[in-house]
């Protein structure tokens, strides 16, 4: 069980993550959604103990009850070796181009599990089968450039699974892939989480992929978790103005492109763009782009409220008039 309570990651120019609270139990599938600069990857870095040294951490992070907030690097190494693994967006740059993919995947087993060459090889072959790589005994002798993008991502998933982690963090795992391949990789991650009772944290800006992959979702903006809850509920009836804006701005492939008078139908937009960290408002970070903004929004940080832990002054005001 990974638990995060009011974690803040502070840099000299501002907070990259503010008061993030989360709980990840075995078999959970949690989606983290947000645009660039929303703090998604910083949240993942916290869970992996990979926050840059220049940052100051506050709040509490526990793994099975053990406080890891300020844990030493060697303790984190044992976590990363056996218990938590991560896959990244770009499957080409995450693999060593000069090594056969089978050797790359075998390495953590040899180092952390102390397996011999033959044992490791047998396990790699079994893992390749599990992640859906056809003809694994031939594929594990190949170099990364000989594989397609989807297959490379499968190799990276096999690498992440090498030491049977309890938590797999997938940071934009489908962004670099074509739509149809992305669907298959998404489904594979769901299947692996279910069959291994492994927690999955699926980070993406792609709402469709997150909807497919996860049961719980946390929406992030400017380093804040603005809303979290069951995936279907949050995407179906978004509570936070940012979530609402984000969902509305996504084009609908089935919508009619033109109005009755022949003019083209415009997309609903969120005005402005994500400000840089140093220019973020002290209070709610969505200030300046929000349609229901109130006078206190810029200066007072909204308290997470209600079943979705929504951080919004306007909503708070609505509920308690």
């Amino acid at each position, binding site marked *: 069980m990974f638990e995060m309570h009011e974690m803040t990651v502070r840099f000299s120019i501002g907070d990259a993550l503010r008061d993030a609270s989360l709980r990840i139990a075995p078999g959970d599938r949690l989606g983290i959604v947000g*645009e*660039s600069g929303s703090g998604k990857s910083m949240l993942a870095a916290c869970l992996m103990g990979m926050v840059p040294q220049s940052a100051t951490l506050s709040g509490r992070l526990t793994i099975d009850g053990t406080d890891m907030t300020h844990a030493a690097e060697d303790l984190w190494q044992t976590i990363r070796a056996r218990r938590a693994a991560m896959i990244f967006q770009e499957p080409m740059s995450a693999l060593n181009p000069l090594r056969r993919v089978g050797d790359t995947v075998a390495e953590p087993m040899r180092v952390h599990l102390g397996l011999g060459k033959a044992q490791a090889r047998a396990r790699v072959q079994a893992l390749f089968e599990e992640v859906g790589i056809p003809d694994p005994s031939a594929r594990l002798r190949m170099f990364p450039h000989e594989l397609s993008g989807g297959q490379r991502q499968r190799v990276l998933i096999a690498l992440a699974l090498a030491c049977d982690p309890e938590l797999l963090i997938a940071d934009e795992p489908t962004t670099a892939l*074509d*739509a*149809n*391949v*992305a*669907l298959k990789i998404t489904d594979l991650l769901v299947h692996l989480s279910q069959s291994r009772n492994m927690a999955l944290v699926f980070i993406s*800006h792609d*709402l*469709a*992929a997150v*909807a*497919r992959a996860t049961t719980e979702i946390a929406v992030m903006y400017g380093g804040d978790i603005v809303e979290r809850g069951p995936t279907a509920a949050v*995407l179906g009836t978004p509570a936070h103005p940012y979530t609402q*804006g*984000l*969902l509305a*701005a*996504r*084009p*609908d*492939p*089935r*919508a*009619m*492109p*033109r109005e009755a008078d022949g*003019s*083209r*139908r*415009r*997309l*609903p*937009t*969120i*005005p402005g*763009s*994500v400000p840089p960290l140093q220019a973020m408002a002290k209070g709610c970070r969505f200030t300046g*782009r929000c349609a229901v903004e109130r006078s206190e929004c810029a200066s007072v940080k909204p308290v997470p409220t209600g079943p979705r832990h929504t951080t919004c002054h306007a909503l708070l005001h609505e509920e308690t008039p």
Partner: protein
Amino acid sequence: MTLLQAQGLTRRYKLPRRTVFGTPPVLTAVENISFEIAAGQTLGIVGESGSGKSTLARMAMAFEAPDAGRILFEGQDIHALGAAQLRRLRPDFQMVFQDPFSSLDPRRKVGWSIAEPLRAMGVSAPDRVAEAFEQVGLHPADGDKYPHEFSGGQRQRIAIARAIITRPKLLIADEAVSALDVSVQAQILNLLMDLQETLGLGILFISHDLAVVASVCDNLLVMQRGQAVEYGAATDILNTPSHAYTRSLLTAAGETH
């Protein structure tokens, strides 16, 4: 009126030789593709990577010639024109690229970059630079800034300003919103719609994202491995896709709706 007409376009690339004396294998990037774009209309091209979308764009921009077929711009075969004639025609069709971070010179003020097509035409008109800035929702004073001072969405606006400064009839947008966040992407798509209505632009809009293409196009060309899988009115194709590949793209794009 037909602005751009592609007739039976085919483009093949020679791949590296496998053996010293063997014939090099050939990749057919685009095979027998035909389409039309009228003034004020948008043709969307959708397909996965390697489907030949960008090869089509490069041929439509006369960056490279097709091995078979013709591209007619207002009735003239652009690949049959001489270099000087083609240069005179270039202001009429312009392109917006995917990556607003690499398509602008980081060491030049953006006002200079935007005016570059005008200089290539031998025209000097500072008022047109200001006009282009305003058309894309920026301030003329922004011309004195460098690219790094702008966000990704603003940079894409600058790239669009550079493309429309020659007052083109046709705009080719190759993955022009793919690098942008969803909330900014909608702004840029709306900007393209605004410009199309005010300037009467024909747009060739290329993307791997069917939802994005669907929101801006009148006609749709679905490509897979260099072939046209479907071509026709976008609403027809999206409502009753006849090909399994189009259906799978719709599934991939429409999960949250």
